[in-house]
């Protein structure tokens, strides 16, 4: 017998994240490393458990292997519950049909049975590509107070950037009267964060209706929300004031990592009342040798530093050789920067080697973009890697 849950979270983690290029070639975007020891998905998962929501369905589709393995039984997030916990939900074959998740709404539609097992009153929809700390429970209280059919978390953005977002136009009481996807002339600066709380029954009704419409693109922003507004449902905007970053591009991923640095960082990982949980590796502490220097950076377990590291984020087991320089860069797990190599304004993916003496990237001031080195590559002296290049296995031969 399954106990009733008040709220079930559904985390959309199937996106390909194609604007992260080589970083998501073999990994789903939510499994992309972030901030020294995390994956992007650790943030929504930790927010769930910190908000006392212990039932989470993770909808996977693109390159799910790494993500499935990472989530496992959910133990790192305390989501290995007897009732509830985390469940990975890939698309499946049913008696009448088998189909991929066609859109965000369709992904939830295909898992109506999963949600119904817990008989929740509310369904929280999340996406797996944002870095933020948020109390979903506070949002749920707001949703209940407003007696809303759907509550959408919104963030104030500068008017100049509003046309990049889905914008909620609201009345004085924060009820939504209009939703505009990437408006040319925005009327409001309340951008949707892609976080929704629905009353379960209302959500199911609209999902079922949406599924019957062959012209629909089965998307929450494009179809479900406008349909609800058209029918006069009560939709409310819930204002969020904290740090929130969509890490969908190389540039924003780099920026979000850099936002962790400094004495008073834009995003604080050291708040013990709102810990971010992650799957741990059994690795020794990091070592900084005599010749090593580290300034304004984040370093984690298994690293060995004999070179100069500045304004950078190092993931676990990164080795920096003597005389090597790493500046304004992000080095993913297990990569080696050999002695005398120079890495500036770059992202180096997992388990790659930058050979002795090789120079990658350029000073941030002079570079017109971030140089990205894919995983499991060895960059040697005979290669010429242009500044701001995206280097993966296939492209490697072009640079010799």
């Amino acid at each position, binding site marked *: 017998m399954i106990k009733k849950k008040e709220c079930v979270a559904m985390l959309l983690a199937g996106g390909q994240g194609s604007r992260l290029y080589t970083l998501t070639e073999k990994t789903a975007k939510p499994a992309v490393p972030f901030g020294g020891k995390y994956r992007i998905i650790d943030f929504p998962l930790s927010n769930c458990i910190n908000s006392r929501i212990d039932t989470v369905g993770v909808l996977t589709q693109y390159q799910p292997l790494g993500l499935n393995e990472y989530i496992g039984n959910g133990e*790192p997030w305390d989501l290995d519950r007897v009732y509830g916990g985390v469940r990975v939900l890939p698309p499946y074959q049913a008696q009448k049909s088998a189909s991929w998740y066609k859109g965000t709404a369709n992904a939830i539609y295909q898992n109506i049975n999963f949600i119904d097992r817990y008989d929740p009153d509310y369904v929280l929809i999340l996406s797996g590509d944002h870095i933020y700390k948020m109390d979903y429970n506070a949002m749920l209280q707001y949703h209940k107070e407003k007696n809303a059919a759907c509550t959408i978390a919104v963030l104030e953005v500068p008017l100049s950037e509003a046309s990049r977002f889905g914008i909620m136009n609201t009345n004085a009481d924060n009820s939504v009267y209009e939703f505009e996807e990437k408006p040319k002339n925005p009327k409001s600066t309340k951008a949707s964060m892609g976080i929704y709380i629905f009353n379960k029954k209302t959500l199911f009704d609209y999902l079922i209706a949406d599924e019957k419409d062959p012209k629909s693109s089965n998307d929450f922003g494009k179809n479900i929300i406008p349909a609800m507004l058209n029918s006069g449902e009560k939709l409310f905007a819930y204002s969020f004031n904290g740090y929130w970053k969509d890490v969908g591009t190389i540039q924003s991923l780099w920026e979000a990592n850099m936002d962790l640095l400094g004495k008073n960082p834009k995003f604080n990982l050291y708040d013990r009342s709102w810990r971010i949980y992650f799957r741990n590796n059994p*690795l*020794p502490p990091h*070592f900084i040798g005599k010749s090593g220097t*580290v300034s*304004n950076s984040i*370093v984690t377990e298994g690293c060995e530093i004999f070179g100069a590291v500045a304004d950078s984020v190092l993931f676990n087991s990164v080795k920096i050789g003597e005389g090597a320089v790493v500046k304004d860069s992000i080095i993913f797990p297990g990569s080696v920067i050999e002695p005398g190599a120079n890495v500036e304004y770059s992202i180096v993916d997992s388990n790659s080697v930058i050979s002795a003496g090789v120079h990658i990237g350029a000073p941030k001031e002079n570079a017109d973009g971030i140089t990205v080195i894919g995983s499991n590559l060895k960059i040697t002296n005979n290669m010429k890697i242009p500044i701001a290049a995206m280097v993966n296995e296939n492209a490697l031969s072009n640079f010799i």
Partner: protein
Amino acid sequence: MNAAGIIFSNLHDQRITELTRQRTMASIPFACRYRLIDFALSNMVNSDITNINVIAHYNYHSLMDHIGTGKNWDLARRTGGIKILPPYITAYANHDNALYSTRLEALKSVIFSISHIQEELIVLSDCDVICNIDISKLIKYHIDSSADITMVVKSVNLSSYIDENHIIVKSNNKKEITDIITYPVDISGPQDISLNIWVIRKDLLITMVNDALAHGYVSFHRDIIGKNIGKLRMQVYNHNEYSAVISSFNNYYATSMSLLSNPDIRRSLFEIADRPIFTKVRNSAPTKYVGSPLITDSLIADGCVIEGTVDNSILFRGVKVGQGATVKNSILFQDTVISNNAYLNCVVTDKNVVIREGVVLSAHQTMPIHIEKNKMI
């Protein structure tokens, strides 16, 4: 693996009272993020020994907190897994109100639990030995040499005055034990010392403990091993990769510091493929370096925020080093706070110690000072 493990968590506590006042030998912190028991546990788990009993005696709260369900060592299991065996005292039979003080008495108190072990062999280990040993090889050696008892030893060159806590094992060219010296006096030169890890048949262990009970024996080495030389087949097994036996506070300090000066020690403990050392997960954020602090020759755990100078030191999880502060030749346990402009040299701070602004504490490498848990200086 047809072997179970028994770990003694409290033996030798009295050798290092500074650190065992509020914890067991097993839960002494070591190398930034580990506790001494992590080595014994990981060695067993890495050799597929997954039925492990930990014998606890007193002040084992920190140990229970560390082990939890055992999931960090993959020992949260339906069959086997980890079990803590606290002292077994029945209200009516406890005439002399005595807890055990020796290994043999410890075994007596849990003989009932041992008799329920299904495995044929038992690996016994103390917590004062730091090593990364392949126990499956040890067991293979034990079986191949048809031994009754196999004892792990390390060849060392003893200097006569300092090593009174070591047990010296003599063996012949067939590696058979010929003598055990429990209280060595004035012995120096090349010797084999016990690493306090044994393999023994379960039924033999039970017979021996019962026999000792009947005769009132108390010492495992003297009364069991010593009295059976020539009667039982007792072998030594040489573990000649790195190992250290923690025998005093100074020795703890020196062993910790050797991790900094010798990268080979770090590799032989922590970087052997397929033999990681597991420990309790604390979910610390990574360590953040603010500004341009000067860091040299130091091992640093996660969750630290460092703004000051750190040289030749070991920082555990969650340590804060303020601006203008200097930490040299020191070991800072979990959540130590070094305020701005403080100066530390050769200091071991226990958990949650706070060193206030501008405080200067300096000792010598041969006589480091220990600051008790939760103290503010």
